[in-house]
């Protein structure tokens, strides 16, 4: 197995998940090196989203172990994982429609801030200081994806490409150290894909560990350090993009779908 030793940012060990008779993920193991960008690919129904949800805590895996930065988080609820440096962006995300772009990004700051109900109601100085910090951090996150011009626009006025950017800004506002994204460029136009490619490369430069589920091989080839291929729940190939592209099992798994 290629990848990190003990310093893994994210480690999946023998993870399986079944839905009734459907074995969506079967005994998957890999470790992701800090600061790397890994793409998880595979045909429809291969179990990519299921695996991602097991890592982020929205599905409880049946067997195996999931570690984030060396800590076993297998039994942690999703929100606790999020508060400990794990960021997740779902395949489909709805913004908070009634609120502006800025406030939407502020939601992400929930992960590292502390003021709760009472502080929100009574507004002690500590809470107001934290609110200022939240406004600043969320504005920076929006700037990273190029949305700083739209701070005060209503979120439901954004076109789909910018909505995707907003969901990424929101997860960046969480200050994650490990980022999981499910098909971040699906349904986007070429220009938007290029823009996101730049964003992911920037984040990589900043040392963020990323795991992306993706179908678009061109996109995968342009950003990934490493590609893990799932087929019917199991890993069938794992390596740098060029190597995986030539792998016979991968080609036969994709046979007829002609994505490679």
């Amino acid at each position, binding site marked *: 197995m290629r990848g990190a030793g003990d310093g893994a940012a994210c480690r999946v060990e023998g993870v399986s998940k079944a839905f009734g008779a459907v074995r969506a993920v079967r005994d998957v193991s890999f470790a992701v090196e800090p600061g790397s960008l890994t793409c998880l690919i595979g045909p429809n129904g291969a179990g990519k989203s299921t695996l991602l949800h097991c890592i*982020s*805590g*929205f599905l409880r895996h049946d067997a195996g172990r999931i570690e984030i930065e060396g800590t076993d988080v297998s039994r942690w*609820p*999703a*929100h606790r994982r*999020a*508060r400990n440096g794990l*960021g*997740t*962006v*779902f395949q489909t*995300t*709805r*913004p*908070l*429609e*009634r*609120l502006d772009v800025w*406030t939407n990004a*502020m*939601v*992400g*700051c*929930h*992960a*590292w*801030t502390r*003021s*709760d*109900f009472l*502080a*929100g*109601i*009574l*507004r002690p100085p500590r*809470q107001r200081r*934290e*609110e200022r910090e*939240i406004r600043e951090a969320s504005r920076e996150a929006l700037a990273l994806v190029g949305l700083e011009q739209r701070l005060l626009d209503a979120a439901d006025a954004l076109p789909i490409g910018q909505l995707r950017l907003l969901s990424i800004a*929101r*997860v960046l506002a*969480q200050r994650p150290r490990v980022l999981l994204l499910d098909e971040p460029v699906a349904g986007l136009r070429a220009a938007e894909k290029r823009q996101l490619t730049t964003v992911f490369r920037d984040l990589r430069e900043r040392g963020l560990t990323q795991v992306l589920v993706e179908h678009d091989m061109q996109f995968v080839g342009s950003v990934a350090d490493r590609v893990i291929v799932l087929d019917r729940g199991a890993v069938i190939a794992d390596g740098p993009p060029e190597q995986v592209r030539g792998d016979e099992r991968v080609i036969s798994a994709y046979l007829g779908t002609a994505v490679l």
Partner: protein
Amino acid sequence: MGLSAMVAIGLSLLMGFAGQVSLGQGAFYALGAYAAGLLSVPKELFANGLGLDPLLALAAAPLLTATVAAVVGVPLLRLRGHYLAFATLALHLILLSVIFGEERLTGGQTGLIGIPALEVGGRTITGNLHTAVVWALVVVCFVIAQNLVRSRAGRGLQAIATSEASAAAAGVDVASYKLRLFVLAAGFAGLAGGLYTYLLLYLSPDAFTLLISIEFVVMVAVGGLGSVSGAVLGAVVVTLLQYYLQKFGTRQELLGLDLPIQTPTVARIGVYGLIFVLVMLFFPRGLLPAFTGALRRLGRR
């Protein structure tokens, strides 16, 4: 009117911001009212009364109500959407059956009498003074709600309304947040109930029918989901309408027809349905957003 506004503010947080529809706010209102009544009624007048100072009883009413909400909220809030709405409605039904059934505890159908007046610093709080106190407390609830909505916790709650999973992905402890808000909204309803007790100094179960729970939801929806001021506006509009309808409905005859005794109640239910449908048809986002939207359009001309 102010009492309804207080309940509506809490419910608007629950419904309009966190997306949790409760048809049981009337139960918490009743709970607050009976808590205040039973705590302050003297033993000589009612065997199960505690004879506490009314002011103390009034302070205890929202706390007791909130405590009950914290307990029943744990299983209830596992339910979503319509299931939650029906379960909270059932909560109201259960409470009513307790009030009617446990006569020795609650006074049953005959009601609870002999509640002492609320006195603060030698002044009796009745009439206009009572109204003023109620509205002052409405303002307090309003400020609490507004501050909460615009805080980190408020954003977390609004994220829950959009998607519980994506709220959790941002680190929001969804179950705990829903419960805490449920408790706060119940506290507002309990406070309103307690204040109601010291308005009439008499409690009858007839004041707490299922209709009031529905009434609160109508107020919030009519005023505008997702706006605290909308809830207050909704409470005012619905209460006024109801007042005029009551006058209209209690007339002995209408257009030469003898009206049956149930007319007021039936008319009330019918009219809620009607207002609700009309507002939802013409102002689906509620009266207040429609109104401010119109103002903005006028301003732009």
